[in-house]
């Protein structure tokens, strides 16, 4: 089953990657979105707004039973009928039976993701009821027999010529692909539907407990028609849409359009309470509150924040994976980061299994989420659950459990690999081609060779003669610094010694555990956390300095989380987290070293790439720029400087190299467009990826760690 599923998934990935105009469209949209969103929030405090929404939504989750009761009471007092549907089937059955009881032959629908979630149209068809989608995007995909590829813009994957062909089939004539014309065709074709239908079906963006009313946030006007003309109105509403008061609803309304499309407000916000007048009598209003996995989600401490989602779709808009493959690959019914999580709970873990691995972990979505959901964190948790259920693959399990946890064995195997690679490296530092079935690994980037001598073996040979050092710091190198880029360690010593800081290398340090954790092997991650805490705290350093932001996040955040319930380790993990700091921030914030490194020798033009875990994890992006500018270099900004480079650890090696390659190509283009001769960054993983891409494409731009560029200014 899972093999079949994976094969289908891989096929969809290949198809999407072979559709360059889809990628172009999603990239263009993503760029325009960022600007529109920024303008829409001008003068407003986004952080404060999303904190408010998060707190309100958490309150709703905790008090959901009371709020459902309050909503139901108020809605029924206003003449509505409220039905609580436990499952998708339950909701569909209720609506289909209602249609049959009233002899409904035709239904007009306004956009409702909940009805996509339950496959309502299919259920209606089985009951002999024709459902007509009236939202333009939904109508297009209904005609095409597809599913939405975006929560807000369901037909974003389709193009005008395709739409013209679909509309032509409806009208029986050739339709021009002029967009205003196509919109006019939709207006004319759908208009009569509202009059012919006996039932209108809508979703809702908010269900307000205080009034028993619902609110719809829309642009086209079809929801107003679908909730006005037919005699019966059914609103299918996910339970997470409940809000306590009109103030709360207004707060959601202020944020949703701004974050979804960069609009200050949509054309229409419609507040409906109760059975309002309809023709000669009153409307029959049914509100179906949909559970379908939401209660289970509320009970999951690791995942429940996902219920805060207000369905704005922003997590897709900024996602490099979504921009590369679209929502039909990176999504089930709900798409992108939130889609991965909701799919697991609403449509089953089985349907989420491939998607959980498709996230590259760049946290771009977390930065724009209007409900402050740690989407990446939840996806990582689901990866662990999946690792437990389906296994993480025998190869990985062997490496993590039996090799990595045993540091000496792990390290001696890397040393052995350093010798074994000689035939392909021919003594050079970059591997440009690999033989046979490994060849695809170096098809689109070169790979660095494992260093002849790791940093740990050469450390003692670096003399540090400081009389009265300001600080004694321990260096947590991480595997890449230790075994692949040991020279960066030398540069670190040189730079920090210049600032009168002594650096030592605790030899018992091991892999930070991220590869295991991100692959779903929590047990190994815990074992490595304990080894590293022991090793790093042993000599009581003033600080633990890192050059890899992924390691930084591991030491600062993941160890705490992994060991929080362990009375022996929790306190030590806290101690380590408190003194861990990445090197650029250490130099600027702790050593005031902004203006210490000045280079009279040249005016190199440098552009800076923000590593995901440094900017959105550790919150560091100004310091390296300050250091580079302070060193006399001209710093020029590239477009999308904080967009992921596509590395993602094993993501670019084994899980999704094909997607990683596309994301890297985007980055290389952005770097090249600046005209810089050097791209700086603070992450050895990004260096591996970006340097590999630049070398393979034979660009004359060097990729360097900030610490290397600082060292260049010293004699």
């Amino acid at each position: 089953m899972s093999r079949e599923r994976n094969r289908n998934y891989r096929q969809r990935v290949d198809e999407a990657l072979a559709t360059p105009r889809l990628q172009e469209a999603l990239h263009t949209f993503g760029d325009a979105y960022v600007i529109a969103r920024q303008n829409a929030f001008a003068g407003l405090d986004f952080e404060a707004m999303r904190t408010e929404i998060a707190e309100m939504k958490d309150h709703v989750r905790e008090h959901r039973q009371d709020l459902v009761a309050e909503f139901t009471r108020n809605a029924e007092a206003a003449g509505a009928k409220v039905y609580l549907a436990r499952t998708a089937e339950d909701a569909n059955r209720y609506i289909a039976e209602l249609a049959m009881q009233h002899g409904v032959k035709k239904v007009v629908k306004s956009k409702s993701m909940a009805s996509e979630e339950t496959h309502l149209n299919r259920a209606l068809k089985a009951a002999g009821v024709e459902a007509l989608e009236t939202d333009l995007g939904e109508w297009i995909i209904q005609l095409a027999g597809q599913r939405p590829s975006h929560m807000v813009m369901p037909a974003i994957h389709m193009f005008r010529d395709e739409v013209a062909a679909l509309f032509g089939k409806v009208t029986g004539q050739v339709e021009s692909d002029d967009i205003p014309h196509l919109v006019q065709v939709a207006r004319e074709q759908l208009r009569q539907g509202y009059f012919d239908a006996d039932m209108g079906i809508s979703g809702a963006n908010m269900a307000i407990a205080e009034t028993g009313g619902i609110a719809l946030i829309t642009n086209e006007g079809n929801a107003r028609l679908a909730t006005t003309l037919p005699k019966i109105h059914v609103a299918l509403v996910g339970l997470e849409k409940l809000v306590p008061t009109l103030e709360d609803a207004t707060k959601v309304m202020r944020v949703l359009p701004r974050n979804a499309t960069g609009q200050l407000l949509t054309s229409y916000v419609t507040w409906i309470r109760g059975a309002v007048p309809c023709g000669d009598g009153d409307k029959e209003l049914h509100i179906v509150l949909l559970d379908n996995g939401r209660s289970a989600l509320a009970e999951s401490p690791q995942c429940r924040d996902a219920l805060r989602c207000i369905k704005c779709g922003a997590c897709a808009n900024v996602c490099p994976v979504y921009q590369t493959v679209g929502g039909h690959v990176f999504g089930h019914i709900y798409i992108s980061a939130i889609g991965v999580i909701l799919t697991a709970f609403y449509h089953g873990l089985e349907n989420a299994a491939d998607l959980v691995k498709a996230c590259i972990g760049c946290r771009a979505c977390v930065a724009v989420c209007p409900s402050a959901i740690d989407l990446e964190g939840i996806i990582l948790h689901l990866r662990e659950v999946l690792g437990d259920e389906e296994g993480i693959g025998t190869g990985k399990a062997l490496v993590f459990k039996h090799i990595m946890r045993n540091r000496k064995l792990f390290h001696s195997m890397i040393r052995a690999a350093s010798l074994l690679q000689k035939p392909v490296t021919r003594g050079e530092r970059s591997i440009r081609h690999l033989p046979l079935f490994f060849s695809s690994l170096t098809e689109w980037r070169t790979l660095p060779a494992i260093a002849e001598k790791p940093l740990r073996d050469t450390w003692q040979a670096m003399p540090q003669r400081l009389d009265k050092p300001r600080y004694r710091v321990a260096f947590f190198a991480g595997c890449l610094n230790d075994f692949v880029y040991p020279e960066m360690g030398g540069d670190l010593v040189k730079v920090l010694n210049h600032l009168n800081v002594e650096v030592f290398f605790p030899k018992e340090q091991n892999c930070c555990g991220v590869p295991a954790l991100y692959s779903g092997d929590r047990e190994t991650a815990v074992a490595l956390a304990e080894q590293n805490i022991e090793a790093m705290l042993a000599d009581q350093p003033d600080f633990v300095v890192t050059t890899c932001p992924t390691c930084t996040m591991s030491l600062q955040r993941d160890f705490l989380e992994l060991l929080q319930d362990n009375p022996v380790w929790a306190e030590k993990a806290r101690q380590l987290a408190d003194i861990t700091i990445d090197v650029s921030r250490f130099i600027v914030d702790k050593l005031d070293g902004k203006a210490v490194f000045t280079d009279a020798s040249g005016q190199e033009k440098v552009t800076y790439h923000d590593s995901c875990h440094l900017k959105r994890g550790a919150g560091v992006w100004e310091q390296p720029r300050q250091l580079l500018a302070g060193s006399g270099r001209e710093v020029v900004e590239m477009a999308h400087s904080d967009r992921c480079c596509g590395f993602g650890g094993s993501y670019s090696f084994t899980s999704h190299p094909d997607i990683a390659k596309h994301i890297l190509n985007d980055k290389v283009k952005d770097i090249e467009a600046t005209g810089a001769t050097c791209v700086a960054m603070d992450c050895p993983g990004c260096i591996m990826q970006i340097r590999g891409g630049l070398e393979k494409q034979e660009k004359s731009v060097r990729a360097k760690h900030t610490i290397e560029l600082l060292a260049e200014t010293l004699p």
Partner: protein
Amino acid sequence: MLNQFAEALKKVGGQVTEVATAREAAVYIAGRINGTVLLPPQSSLERAGLAAALEAEGVTVIKDSWREHAPAAGAGVTGVNFALADTGTLVLDSTAESLRLTTTLPERHFALLDPCKILADSLDAVPYLRGFHERAPRNYLAYITGPSRTADIERVLTIGVHGPRELHVLLMPGLSADFYEL
């Protein structure tokens, strides 16, 4: 506040004009329509004598049988309960079905707003929303911000999908200072 409202509304494709009397409003409307005009009963517009003023300009004014007449009507004319400055939004108590048909089906919507009824933003509107709910047990309240729009085909902004293609706001001082009156 008035300027902010007008700027915000223009940004989303609405048109704003100032009129001093019902006659001026009628002249503005009559010059921009084809066919009939829907005019549901609204006390502020009745007080101003708008129906008679429109008829004096040769406009056929529909005052009943909304479902029958609305599909073919050229325009709808309404008052406004109040407006929101920051987004250029009109708030209309649309509980009466005639109000909804008037503001959804025709291609043009003319809305007469007393400029003294403009609030800063949607948070300021909440007490009034609550007020509507307290005054009547069932409500259909509409926030209208510009004409109907879509970007569902290739994200190209297109005005006028299912609702009005044009939204004209006629600012008429002295029309009504009551936030609960249309």
